[in-house]
């Protein structure tokens, strides 16, 4: 694979995109998991699929190639806004926003797929990831999203920590509501950036599984973020390597490696290799 990385641009593009996804998906995933919003990533990925099928349909309609990644990002951001709006409408049943937006995304996908005369090879790549589909424009777009996400976390880490840990206290401290709004938009961007490699249907796994594994072996929030990224990158690197050599979609191999890492951490935690302390005083 190393020779292929040197010889072929598309392999190199995929690898770099994978590394970016392996970094930003678990980083944002940490806040998603902690805030118990894991299913929002799934809902948004389905809306992104709606955007991609719309891009495919539009291309067939106007007879010129429109990059479906662009339409995917636009739909994903609007889906994020829709989720936030619906969470406000159903204050006591906020999780209702997820099936509503998810079914909307799937319905749009089916509609545009039918209009665009069905399934094609490109779409298979979007659904399950592809090692050969990342072009130079995609790489630039994914890199820009990566930088945006890193700036977001660097500048708003303390606010995101407080909102995630204790929303009531954050409200009392008058921590701006737009931070949550911005967070959901960033989630939509991460999904769009990661889907080229892992695929729409598995993108939420790259945001949650490394975090789930890291939770078993860490006790501080910073450690959780660092270990999530390490698990995410390991999954992407090993997954892409296997995908290349077995000639299968990278989405499946990356997620299976993530699951294997999760299983290992659960077993290690169980047998007490990493012990977290017990209360020292009883009340």
């Amino acid at each position, binding site marked *: 694979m190393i020779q292929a990385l040197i010889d072929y641009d598309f392999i190199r593009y995929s690898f770099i995109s994978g590394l970016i996804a392996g970094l930003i998906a678990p980083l944002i995933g940490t806040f998603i998991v902690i805030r118990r919003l894991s299913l929002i990533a799934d809902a948004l990925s389905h809306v992104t699929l709606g955007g991609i099928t719309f891009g495919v349909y539009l291309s067939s309609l106007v007879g010129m190639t429109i990059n479906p990644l662009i339409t995917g990002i636009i739909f994903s951001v609007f889906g994020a806004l829709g989720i936030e709006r619906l969470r406000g409408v159903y204050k006591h049943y906020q999780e209702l926003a997820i099936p509503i937006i998810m079914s909307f995304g799937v319905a749009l996908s089916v509609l545009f797929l039918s209009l665009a005369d069905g399934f094609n090879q490109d779409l298979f790549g979007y659904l399950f990831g592809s090692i050969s589909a990342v072009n130079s424009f995609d790489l630039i777009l994914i890199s820009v999203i990566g930088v945006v996400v890193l700036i977001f976390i660097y500048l708003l880490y303390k606010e995101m920590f407080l909102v995630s840990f204790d929303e009531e206290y954050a409200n009392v*401290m008058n921590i701006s509501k737009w931070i949550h709004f911005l967070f959901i938009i960033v989630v939509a961007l991460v999904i769009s950036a990661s889907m080229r490699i892992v695929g729409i249907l598995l993108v939420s796994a790259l945001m949650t599984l490394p975090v789930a594994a890291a939770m078993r072996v860490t006790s501080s929030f910073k450690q959780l973020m660092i270990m999530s990224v390490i698990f995410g990158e390991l999954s992407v690197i090993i997954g892409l390597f296997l995908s290349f050599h077995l000639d299968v979609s990278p989405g499946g191999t990356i997620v299976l490696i993530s699951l294997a890492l999760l299983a290992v951490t659960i077993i290690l935690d169980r047998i007490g290799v990493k012990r977290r302390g017990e209360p020292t005083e009883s009340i």
Partner: protein
Amino acid sequence: MAHPIFELKNISYTYKDKLETTPALKNINLQVHKGDFVALVGPNGSGKTTLLKLILGVLRLQTGEININGKSIRNYQSWQEVGYVSQKSNSFSKGFPATVGEVVLSGLTKEKGLFKRFNRKDRQKLKEVLELLNISHLQNKNISLLSGGQTQRVFIARALINNPSILVLDEPTVGIDAKHVKEFYDVLFKLKSQSVTILLVTHDIGVVVDHADEVACLNESLHFHGTNNEFKNLGEAELSKIYGFPLQLVSHDHERSTTSDTGAY
């Protein structure tokens, strides 16, 4: 004359939904001055939490006016002056992977302002507040592994790390044993001696009559506001009127508590 720290003028609040309206507060007037230790007491459903949410700006005012340090709450921005300790059981996400140090440091979020990161000076403040609460040894421990009393001390430390001039506490000693309740009040007295204004919301009357300077009794409207001694001298009839059922103050050992026909309150 200096402004009161809290000034509540003609506060009324009604919860409204599509089917019904439920009045929670009626025409509340209350002043709390600098360095006062005021206990706000009342039975369940008396509007204590609603009033607290209004004072903290979480609920929007419907009628009346609240001033903090002479500034209207409608455009009050200096929330870092206010330390808040909530009922821990409802407040934080159980199993959260964060250390005591990270949680306490997060109390500085508002004071630091947007886009700024914690620095060495902030870590020094963290060290000092952990020492004040005798929890320095817990700094690197996961918050979800602490006992109830330890957890509550962590939340008090988070509220105090800003050096707030006002401390608002909502049922802070629920589920904590007598030894740690005493330690908790020792910390409050220490803060009071430094002119920190304390507003304590509780229905544990037995404890507040021995600790607070003033007591305010709420049950939709403010039935009583006076000194600790005036409250102790309230008759059975007046207390029963506030609580809505037969009630009397009784003493045992050094503490006084409130009992009803159905047992200790």
